[in-house]
């Protein structure tokens, strides 16, 4: 990195922390700390909701996901706009009128304290682990970039975020999100424009699109109904709808964001703005990955995008790795030549030349894939604990190698901003759920605004410590963007099922739904361990499982509970 990049990155980080600390000053009680006095306008709510969901993983791993797997990951988000509309009609007005701090408070009034506690604990486990991944992603950048110790880097990042989050609470979080998300969008737009401008001489945007399209990277929508296929139109619309309903309707890191709206209308508008922006934004980020892919067809990349793993294997298996690198240079050279021939043939509208170039390109792509497979096998053979995927390093590697000074610092600042956005929301939600749904309900809790504020700040710091601990092991999870969503899918369906039962099955009581939640969660974990069903469907299994079992159990345990109560 150049001095200019360091200046840009350093100034951005200092600015983020100072702005968050300044805007968060004066938090004087739980409502102020947890919900920013419920006073934010819809624009700020919208940016905060978007910033919370779009973590560093989104900007770091999503382009790499598109590079490897094409645009089809966009289907994952198709259920989101549907969920935004459904939540605006149902849960948002309800939460506002109940004047709750957390979503789980509602469950005690509807069912009982046990159901509230179970749901809050499921959230705390899931979100506490996810916060670890959120910290790990940008820490990975620094460790690779600067050769820092990954564990120390995770710790440092957690400490930086906790500095203003613990002090300023939701107000610091909401205001920081607005500034940081605008910088993120600007940085990604600059990166996209420069990626296109850096294409080799004589190759334009349309040529790159044609090249990526021929190699299958523009397959955005798969209409086949296959539960074992990870991303299809149906898994996105149905599974994605359940996942997003659960995430935005029952995950306190999001509920806490839109409850900061100054009225029901401002909260609803914030969510609907997210529904309008999210799919096009994800499409643009994925398309950036496709452009990087097209660029690398013409300008060969390194054999393995993770430089630390590559250097380790090159050290312990020097001869084998060198042989692979030689094969890689030959294969990617042939691929670049075929790609240029294809661009020329397409521009000349020469069908015969285009067919010949396509055949040569396909053959060289297969050769490249074979070399990569051999490299992955060698890495696994030499180090069984090494990450078998370099997806997360692809975009970063491209930025460092090909974007100009200053822009590298800007992109890194954006990735840091994204990490800070998500981590701060998660810590704020974990802290508020711990205090409101667990500590305040203890018989020995002393009470008082001062005690609540201190407990919230201490909880923020403790959750940050736990998240950092989990981050230490996140490198073994493969693609980060998939890992974080898989983790959410293990719990979200059950939580959503509890809420939908509360909302629509009015005759079902606490005993039935509590038992159903345990059975539903067991079913989801069984799907995860014992089947090949794609993770998006876990949300459907958990949700419908809880509702179905609760409806079946209510005539049995509900009647028994009433009899016990009468006795």
């Amino acid at each position, binding site marked *: 990195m150049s001095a200019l990049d360091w200046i840009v990155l350093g100034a951005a980080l200092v600015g983020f922390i100072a702005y968050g600390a300044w805007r968060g000053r004066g938090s004087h009680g739980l409502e102020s700390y947890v919900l920013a006095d419920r006073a934010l306008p819809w624009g700020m709510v919208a940016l905060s909701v978007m910033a919370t969901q779009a973590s560093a993983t989104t900007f770091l791993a999503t382009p790499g996901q598109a590079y490897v797997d094409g*645009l089809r990951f966009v289907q994952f988000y198709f259920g989101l706009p549907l969920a935004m509309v459904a939540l605006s009609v149902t849960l948002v007005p309800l939460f506002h009128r109940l004047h709750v701090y957390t979503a789980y*408070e509602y469950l005690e009034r509807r069912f009982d304290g046990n159901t509230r506690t179970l749901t809050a604990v499921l959230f705390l486990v899931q979100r506490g682990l996810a916060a670890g991944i959120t910290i790990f992603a940008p820490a990975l950048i620094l460790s690779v970039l600067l050769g820092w110790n990954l564990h120390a880097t995770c710790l440092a990042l957690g400490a930086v975020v906790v500095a203003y989050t613990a002090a300023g609470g939701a107000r610091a979080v909401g205001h920081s999100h607005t500034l940081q998300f605008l910088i993120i969008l600007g940085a990604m737009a600059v990166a996209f424009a420069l990626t296109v401008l850096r294409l080799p001489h004589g190759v334009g945007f349309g040529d790159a699109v044609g090249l990526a399209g021929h190699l299958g990277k*523009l*397959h*955005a929508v798969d209409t086949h109904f296959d539960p074992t296929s990870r991303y299809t139109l149906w898994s996105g619309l149905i599974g994605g709808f359940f996942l997003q309903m659960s995430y935005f309707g029952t995950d306190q890191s999001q509920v806490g964001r839109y409850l900061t709206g100054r009225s029901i*209308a401002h909260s609803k508008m914030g969510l*609907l703005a997210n529904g309008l922006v999210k799919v096009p934004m994800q499409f643009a980020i994925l398309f950036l990955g496709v452009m990087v892919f097209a660029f690398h067809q013409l300008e060969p990349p390194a054999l393995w995008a993770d430089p630390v793993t590559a250097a380790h294997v090159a050290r312990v298996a020097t001869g084998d790795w060198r042989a692979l690198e030689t094969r890689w240079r030959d294969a990617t050279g042939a691929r670049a030549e075929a790609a240029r021939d294809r661009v020329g043939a397409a521009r000349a509208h020469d069908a015969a030349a285009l067919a010949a170039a396509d055949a040569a390109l396909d053959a060289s792509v297969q050769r490249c894939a074979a070399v990569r497979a051999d490299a992955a096998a060698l890495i696994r053979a030499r180090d069984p604990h090494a990450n078998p995927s370099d997806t997360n390093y692809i975009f970063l590697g491209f930025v460092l190698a090909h974007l100009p000074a200053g822009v590298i610092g800007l992109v890194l600042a954006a990735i840091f901003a994204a990490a800070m956005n998500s981590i701060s929301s998660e810590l704020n939600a974990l802290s508020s759920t711990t205090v409101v749904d667990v500590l305040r309900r203890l018989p020995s809790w002393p009470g008082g605004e001062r005690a609540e504020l201190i407990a919230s700040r201490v909880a923020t710091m403790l959750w940050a410590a736990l998240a950092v601990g989990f981050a230490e092991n996140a490198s073994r999870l493969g693609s980060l963007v998939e890992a974080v969503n898989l983790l959410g899918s293990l719990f979200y369906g059950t939580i959503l099922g509890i809420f939908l039962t509360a909302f629509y099955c009015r005759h079902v009581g606490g005993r039935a739904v509590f038992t159903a939640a345990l059975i539903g969660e067991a079913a989801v974990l069984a799907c995860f361990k014992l089947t090949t069903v794609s993770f998006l469907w876990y949300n459907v299994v958990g949700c419908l499982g809880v509702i179905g079992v609760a409806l079946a159990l209510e005539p049995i345990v509900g009647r028994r509970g009433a009899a016990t109560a009468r006795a």
Partner: protein
Amino acid sequence: MSGERPRVPARGEATGDGVARGAPPGDGAHLAESRADEPPPIAGRWSRLYALVLIELAVCIALGLWLTRAFR
């Protein structure tokens, strides 16, 4: 439990905004009030805004399908 939670009324208790905060959801009270919500900042009516979100989703899916088929 904290003794400082008077801001959450008991189940069924009336509140200043005309809704029983502790009332079970789905009893129509909150749905009735949602009809009286203030209008959205854009589009005039909530139903138009919901339609806008859904139509944009349909357009995105259609564009994705077109892109997929164009390069199949």
